[in-house]
């Protein structure tokens, strides 16, 4: 937390008043944003949080007057330094965009023009506001250096695709800063990035705010980010502001049941792991069919009659706090009531034989090349050994691209094993011949990351599950009954059988995906980021469901995720993966409580936690990006970014030469580091 949280100046820089935005689609009109008001004071950071579809982006775009058609602001004012941006002609607005207000978008992959040099894209921001070409280029260089891009002279003439995601986001920020704007709107600037990179970007933003005094509107759905960066908070739900206030106060005592529930639905890094998550039931509202009254009432455990019919206004709740809740207005309690919960029992590895065992598995993902050409091998999975015991959950974390999915695909036989050995229930299945495939399919099933992509949009839910049953030989009436049973098992009702995926929400689809995986009565589920595409509230539901199933059916999980809190919550044991290798493995307590590998340390300390006022100074923030598996560094793979490695300590050239083995450490778990245990968490 940066030490600038002084009392706000008297005049707001940006004042949004009663903003309402609609999308007219033929005969219906979608109200995406309704009566939104907030103030942003100079030099402060305002966070806007809310689930997907709550109207965050539409609000930001309304301010910029960049609504996608057919969006239209129906009502309200956007006052920048007292001038109503909604009233001025488009030409004048053009002069303001990029000059006074700048915007950073969510997806750094898509935000840069792929066919234009990076330098030109930065310079363009200056050119269109009247800077000469020569001057613009000079400034572009300065900006690139300012946002921390190395080797500017060379990189300025590169194309976006030659940059990593984090670097691209830096470029987008450089573009935003080009004309020294007074206001920066960042729409989920780190959502698509890894935690390590997110930490870098957040640090950059904090620094900019400090150095340049820019005011920032930070749109996010991550409470951790809010806690880390923001001064003030606006919580949106169903297109309305439901709560507003200083971050510290809101976190300490939320005045809206939704805010309170949201805070409880996020798993904590520091949680002991035996308390259940409190999921918010139901799913976020669709703007087209907003519930009457308070939009949150169908999911609210405190709802009273009034909530069903009357929309609560945003009313003051004391010192700069506002909330839109009848219950809170009446002084009631808004903390979520624990739903029927499941006691978490951590399991210790029983003496049983592992259901799944990998021994030094390597997977080559390089395309086979043409008839006449040979491509060098790329080992995305490079010598991994691990075991999953019956009923146990093994969590697997690591940055994007470290090979998590490749590993799971290798186990399922989608990718071929190049070296090593895979055993299922004690049988060698490495060859993946017909018998082995059958054994794998019977024992292990897969839950996919993207619930939207893993169901065939043209087949009904029933048909999708039937197909899975058909494979294991269940047909006819029995199959139909099983389908219904499976649906009910995952918390869906019978009448979903004949629905199509497009009629389901993301969470419901993920339930179907799980039901399908359960059709074959597997012993192990491989869950490849099963919740990362879902909203926080839904995420908690799915995690609860998985836990429930595990306890009931005795399933083992290989649970893959990049969100460390989620992994900690669900896992018995955790493996940390970096560039195709496992660098640390142990029980959740061991790995999270006393990480031995510097990479684990960095991951943990990069993860923002929903606790304001936490010191961020001693954070271990990694520099640079993960190298490509096509060209792994010699010796220890992590050495190029290691805070205790040769990059910082020149005497440690053993790391350059020798690849560390995964070995037991003093605190119990195994780690692959020559200097295991040296780096440590500096938590406040």
């Amino acid at each position, binding site marked *: 937390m940066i030490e600038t949280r002084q009392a706000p100046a008297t005049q707001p820089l940006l004042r949004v008043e009663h903003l309402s935005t609609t999308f007219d689609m033929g005969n219906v009109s979608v109200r995406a944003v309704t009566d939104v008001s907030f103030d942003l004071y100079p030099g402060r950071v305002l966070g806007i949080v809310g689930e997907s579809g709550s109207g965050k982006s539409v609000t930001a775009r309304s301010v910029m007057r960049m609504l996608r058609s057919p969006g239209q602001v129906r009502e309200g004012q956007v006052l920048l330094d007292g001038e109503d941006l909604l009233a001025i002609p488009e030409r004048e607005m053009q002069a303001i965009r990029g000059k006074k207000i700048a915007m950073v978008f969510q997806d750094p992959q898509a935000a840069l023009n792929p066919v234009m040099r990076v330098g030109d894209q930065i310079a363009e921001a200056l050119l269109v506001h009247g800077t000469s070409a020569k001057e613009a280029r000079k400034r572009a260089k300065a900006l690139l250096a300012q946002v921390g891009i190395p080797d500017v002279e060379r990189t300025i003439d590169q194309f976006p695709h030659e940059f990593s995601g984090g670097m691209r986001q830096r470029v987008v920020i450089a573009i935003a800063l080009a004309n020294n704007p007074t206001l920066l709107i960042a729409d989920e600037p780190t959502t698509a990035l890894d935690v390590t990179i997110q930490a870098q970007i957040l640090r950059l933003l904090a620094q900019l705010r400090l150095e340049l005094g820019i005011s920032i509107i930070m749109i996010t759905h991550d409470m951790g980010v809010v806690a880390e960066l923001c001064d003030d908070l606006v919580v949106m739900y169903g297109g309305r502001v439901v709560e507003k206030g200083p971050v510290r106060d809101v976190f300490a005592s939320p005045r809206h049941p939704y805010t309170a529930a949201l805070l409880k639905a996020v798993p904590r890094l520091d949680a002991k792991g035996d308390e259940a998550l409190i999921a918010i039931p139901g799913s976020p509202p669709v703007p087209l069919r*907003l519930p009457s009254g308070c939009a949150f009432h169908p999911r609210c455990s405190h709802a009273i009659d009034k909530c069903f019919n009357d929309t609560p206004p945003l009313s003051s709740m004391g010192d700069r706090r506002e909330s839109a809740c009848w219950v809170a207005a009446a002084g009631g309690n808004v903390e979520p009531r624990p739903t029927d919960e499941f006691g978490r029992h951590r399991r210790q590895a029983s003496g049983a034989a592992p259901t799944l065992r990998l021994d030094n598995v390597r997977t080559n993902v390089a395309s086979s090349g043409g008839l006449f050409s040979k491509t060098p091998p790329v080992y995305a999975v490079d010598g991994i050994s691990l075991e999953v015991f019956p009923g146990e959950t093994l969590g697997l974390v690591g940055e994007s691209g470290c090979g998590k999915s490749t590993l799971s695909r290798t186990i399922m*036989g989608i990718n071929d094993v190049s070296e090593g050995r895979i055993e299922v229930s004690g049988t060698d299945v490495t060859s993946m011949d017909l018998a082995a495939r059958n054994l794998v399919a019977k024992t292990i099933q897969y839950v996919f990351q993207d619930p939207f992509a893993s169901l065939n949009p043209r087949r009904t839910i029933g048909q999708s599950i039937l197909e899975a049953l058909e*494979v294991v030989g269940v047909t006819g009436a029995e199959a139909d009954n099983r389908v219904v049973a499976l649906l009910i098992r995952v918390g869906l009702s019978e009448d979903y059988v*004949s629905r199509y995926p497009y009629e389901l929400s993301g969470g419901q689809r993920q339930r179907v995906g799980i039901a399908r995986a359960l059709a074959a009565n597997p012993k192990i589920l491989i869950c490849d980021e099963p919740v990362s595409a879902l909203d926080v509230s839904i995420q908690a539901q799915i995690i609860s469901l998985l836990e429930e199933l595990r306890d009931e059916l005795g399933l083992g999980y290989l649970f893959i995720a990049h969100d460390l809190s989620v992994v900690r919550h669900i896992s018995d044991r955790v493996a940390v993966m970096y560039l195709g290798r496992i660098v640390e493995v142990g029980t959740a307590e061991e790995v999270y409580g006393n990480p031995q590998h510097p990479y684990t340390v960095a991951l943990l300390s990069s993860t923002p936690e929903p606790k304001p006022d936490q010191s961020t100074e001693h954070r271990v923030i990694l520099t640079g990006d993960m190298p490509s598996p096509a060209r792994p560094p010699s010796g220890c793979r992590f050495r190029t970014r290691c805070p205790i490695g040769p990059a910082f300590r020149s005497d440690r050239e053993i790391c350059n030469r020798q690849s560390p083995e995964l070995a037991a450490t003093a605190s119990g778990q195994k780690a692959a580091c020559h200097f295991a245990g040296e780096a440590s968490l500096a938590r406040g």
Partner: protein
Amino acid sequence: MTDTAPPNRQKARLNPVLSRYLQAFVMPKGQIGLGLVILLTALALLAPVLFPGGYDMQTRDSLLPASWAHPFGTDELGRDIFVRSIYGLRTDLALAATAVPLSMIIGTFLGLSGALSPRLGSLVQRALDIIVGFPGLILAICVVLVVGAGWTALLVAIVIGGLPGFGRLARATFLSQQHREYVVAARTLGVSNWKIMVRHILPNAIDPIIVQGAVFVVAAVFTEAALSIVGLGLQPPEPSLGILLNVGMRYITMAPFYILGPTLILVLLALAFSLLADALNSTVNRK
């Protein structure tokens, strides 16, 4: 908006694909296209009823200009060109109605063959690439020569000519679907390649294939006409639009109206199917 029940789910669920196609006829493009297709098809089907005299009523009134009695004039043997055009349309539509589905089915299957075996798929693709390389009509001409001018030859030539188009579309779908999660999901479940092809990949290929099918009707008629212009089309006396053009071209300076009529019908036909394809395409692409 909130109180009404969700739009007739029962119907949508019964056949979402069909109902999506029907959407095409909500837009003016689709309406005009469909209207023209129906009109032309009806004319073609009803030709024997409308013009019971048939298409070969020779008289001594050669090459009359257009009049009420003969809207398109008469040909060199004194036959009514309008009547012949309609019968020609009938011939061409019948040809298209046979050739297009055949080409569609075979082409789609060839394009999807990669789902059964990747090796087979790329082999088939190579073969189709070679067909595409053949200069325009030459392949069709060779086919006609080998098979012998006539209906069968045209059919074969059109079917072969359409294969690369359908094949490519199907293959593109296959390539894009192949790595889709639900295809991978089916594969990890252990579903057979054949079932994956039919259940998961084929349905996704159908949209573009149907659009291409509508486009290809025009191409089929075009092949017939072009072969006739080169002199290897259908056999007399059965008129086809191509034959009318072929003969009409020879009178182009003496009796320019001769080809005007058949040309008009062909343009209408092409327009009808293009509009239809267009409308289908835009509904199909609407996500």
